[in-house]
C-alpha cells in the first residue's frame, strides 16, 4: 500500500525551462511534506518543505504547491539548470504521540538538458 506516490519515474527538461515534479498521497493526516534531492552515491539532501496548513512555499528557484483536496503536491523548479539533474523524492510526515514517521515516494529522475 503506497501512501506516497510519484507516478513519473523520469522527466527530461530543457535548461532554462520549468521542471514540474508531482507527488500524490493517500493519508489526510500527514502534517508536513518534504522534497529531497539525491545524487548518485550520495544520501538524499533536503530541498524544501511545506506544512499541511499552507498551499505554497517558495525558496529561490524552488516552489512547492500543496493541494489538500486533491492530496497532491508538486515541486516547480524555475529556471531548470543542468546541476538540478538528480533523483527527487517526495516525503510525507505523520505525527503519532509526538513521534514522527516519514513515508517516501519512489522518486523521479530529473534530467536537465543543456
Amino acid at each position: 500500500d503506497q501512501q506516497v506516490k510519484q507516478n513519473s519515474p523520469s522527466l527530461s527538461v530543457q535548461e532554462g525551462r520549468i521542471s514540474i515534479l508531482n507527488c500524490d498521497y493517500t493519508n489526510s493526516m500527514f502534517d508536513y511534506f518534504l522534497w529531497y534531492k539525491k545524487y548518485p552515491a550520495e544520501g538524499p539532501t533536503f530541498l524544501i518543505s511545506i506544512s499541511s496548513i499552507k498551499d505554497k512555499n517558495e525558496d529561490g528557484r524552488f516552489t512547492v504547491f500543496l493541494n489538500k483536496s486533491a492530496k497532491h503536491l508538486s515541486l516547480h523548479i524555475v529556471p531548470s539548470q543542468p546541476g538540478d539533474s538528480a533523483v527527487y523524492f517526495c516525503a510525507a510526515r505523520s505525527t503519532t504521540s509526538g513521534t514522527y514517521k516519514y513515508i517516501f515516494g519512489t522518486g523521479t529522475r530529473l534530467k536537465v538538458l543543456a
Partner: protein
Amino acid sequence: GAGVSQSPSNKVTEKGKDVELRCDPISGHTALYWYRQSLGQGLEFLIYFQGNSAPDKSGLPSDRFSAERTGGSVSTLTIQRTQQEDSAVYLCASSSDRGLPSYEQYFGPGTRLTVT
C-alpha cells in the same frame, strides 16, 4: 565534517552471513532513522529511534533485522543470515529534537550491501 556518517560504504557478503552497518548521526540529534533503497525502489522505512523512547520497529522486514542505538548516539543495524533480497543501499538519517522547528532529516551517504 559534522554530517551523518555511515560505515562501511560498501559491503559484499556471502548469503547466510551476518552483517553490521554503522551510523554516526549529527551530534545532538535525538532522532535516528534507518531506511533501505532497493534497486529501482524508493526509500523503505526500517526503524526509528527517538531519544529514550522505545524504537519504532514497524518497518523491519523480518526478525533477521535488528538495530541498536547506544548512548543515544551511534546506531548499528544488524542483518542476520543475509539473503540475496537484502541487497540494497541502507541509509541512515538523523533529525533534531521534536520540540524544535527543524524537521528535515539529514542523511548519510549510505552503505551499499551486496549479498552474493
